[in-house]
């Protein structure tokens, strides 16, 4: 069963739970920023300025809802390649993201070494993933283990797709975290596809959350296009982890509004009907409608906000494009610590 905020907090779907109107507006702004920034990366790719783009479009509510339940600068995140909205909420700026995309010397993640969308930020406690999927799941358990040994109360949050749950790392990482009762939140962003392969060819269960109890931890499935539901579910998982009660597996059911990446065409494996109907589940449109309904953001305010965000993305793109390339003389840097 997929829970929604109405099941968790009676009346919450009307009021936004205990979140202030200002917080809801901020959530909306982050969702919008992620969307506009993501769309810009595609334009840059099509213009030949970015070799590879992979999107968070359709995952914004799942990521923003979850990240708002975390504490910026304190909690650790190990997002996967769709985690653009996650890292923006955790504190990365659009300029920093663009510096990574353009592989500039001043890219704060890796100085132009790491692939784009393999996000990281040392100060913000964002830890990079590698291209083989799922390896961050075990790292998250390790970070949780270290945090506990060091006596801290930060929680660790990691994300991955439903296809990735077929990898051994998923099983091995979660199992160890569960055995050790580590403060880790495993967020599976289930968009029902792994590139072209549908969920039913990936697993015989209908919900990834069903696997939680098999490891002895709660598994919760939540509507990942509803930012407030994801926030509430994650808030509870964070409380549980901070209390020392252990890990939680959350499945956020989302839609992938783009092709898998800039390298494929999803019209070859998704029907016209599906491509059309998934637009109805656009989390951004959904939250905008909710905020209008609640009189928290007027349509005029939304227009202003969009203009604002677009200007921010313009500025970020320009600043990053002008930044220097890494010097080939530095080719051998960073291979060893000493």
């Amino acid at each position, binding site marked *: 069963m997929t829970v929604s905020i109405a099941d968790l907090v009676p009346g919450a779907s009307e009021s936004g739970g205990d979140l202030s109107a200002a917080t809801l507006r901020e959530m909306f702004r982050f969702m919008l920023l992620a969307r506009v920034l993501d769309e810009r990366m595609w334009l840059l790719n099509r213009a030949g300025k970015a070799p590879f783009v992979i999107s968070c479009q359709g995952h914004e509510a799942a990521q923003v809802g979850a990240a708002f339940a975390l504490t910026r600068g304190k909690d650790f995140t190990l997002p996967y390649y769709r985690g653009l909205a996650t890292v923006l909420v955790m504190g990365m700026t659009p300029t920093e993201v663009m510096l990574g995309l353009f592989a500039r010397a001043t890219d704060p993640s890796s100085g132009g070494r790491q*692939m784009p969308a393999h996000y990281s930020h040392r100060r913000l406690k964002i830890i990079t993933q590698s291209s*083989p999927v799922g390896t961050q799941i075990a790292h998250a358990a390790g970070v949780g283990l270290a945090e506990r040994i060091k006596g801290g109360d930060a929680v660790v949050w990691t994300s991955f797709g439903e296809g990735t749950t*077929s990898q051994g790392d998923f099983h091995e990482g979660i199992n160890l975290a569960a055995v050790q009762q580590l403060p880790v939140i495993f967020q599976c962003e289930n968009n029902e596809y792994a590139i072209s*392969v549908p969920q039913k060819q*990936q697993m015989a269960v209908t919900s990834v959350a069903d696997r939680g109890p098999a490891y002895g931890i709660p598994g919760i499935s939540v509507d990942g296009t509803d930012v407030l539901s994801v926030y509430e579910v994650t808030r509870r998982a964070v409380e549980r982890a901070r209390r020392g009660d252990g890990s939680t597996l959350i499945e956020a059911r989302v839609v992938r509004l783009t092709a898998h990446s800039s390298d494929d065409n999803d019209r070859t494996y998704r029907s016209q009907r599906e491509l059309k109907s998934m637009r109805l589940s656009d989390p951004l449109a959904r939250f905008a409608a909710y905020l209008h309904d609640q009189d928290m953001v007027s349509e005029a305010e939304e227009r202003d906000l969009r203009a604002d965000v677009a200007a921010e993305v313009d500025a970020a793109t320009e600043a990053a494009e002008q930044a220097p390339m890494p010097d080939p003389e530095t080719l051998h840097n960073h*291979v060893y610590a000493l």
Partner: protein
Amino acid sequence: MPIITYRQALNDTLGEELKRDPNVLLMGEEIGVFQGSYRITEGLLQEYGPKRVVDTPIAEEGFVGVAIGAAMLGLRPVVEIMTINFILVAIDQVVNHASKIHYMFGGQVRVPLVIRTPSGGTGQLGATHSQSFENWFAYCPGLKVVAPATPYDAKGLLRAAIRDDDPVMFIESLALYDTKGDVPEDNDFVVPIGVAEVKRTGTDVTVISYSRMTAVAMQVAQRMANEGISVEVVDLRSLRPLDRPTIIASVKKTNRAVVIAEDWYSYGVTAEIAATIQEEAFDYLDAPVQRVAGIETPLPYAKDLSAASKPSAHSLIYAIRKVME
């Protein structure tokens, strides 16, 4: 002979072998509906159905293991690994099982498995997405490793690999998929595993290469001819078994050797070839063997850094000049 792409040669061969032998089946990620990340399996699901063209979960260790199990019962699985980077999560199955089961069974059980995968880099794919690992497998007794450079060899070696009774690592190259060449139509044409080929004859220096670097070597040889240097190109085609006699015969003729490969310099394929030449043709050498290989860093994403980290026509020419001094 018809002229087709390397991609088409692979696609045709898979189709022909599926048709010829009901024990052949394909397994891998995105090979069915999507027709392969690089469209090598185009049309095959449609023609042979989901029992013979199996889209797997993202679980390389699992499905390579499954393929080994099936191969022990006499099926001939041809597994696609999206890129060689992702086989690292399955390396225990390949190195500890596929390669050793025949031995550990005292020769009673065979593992007629083929693992196809592109190796090496094109574009900016970064540290964990564009590596060359064929030497890791070539290191392992019990495995056979082939790495064709032309559509002709791609076809002949893939057919040989599928019909072989031992596990074969079939190394492809993203940069070669669109290259074209003559390919025979004969349905039983094979290129024997373990046999190198002199792709261009020359008298001044031997360049030894395989896969994409053979294409680079052929271009460079043409350029050097204009400068009056006659380059012989030995295309290894198989890394294990390694055709040492062909290498040695060429070096004994030209008295100079340059070895080029895309993997990292230390402990890479070029080291093995250089050692072979030293052992078997030392007295014939007029200059030390030159090696051209990858710079020893993880592969960077930034364009300039990425270009600087890989062997190229430029670095090969530099090495040829050096060996000619």
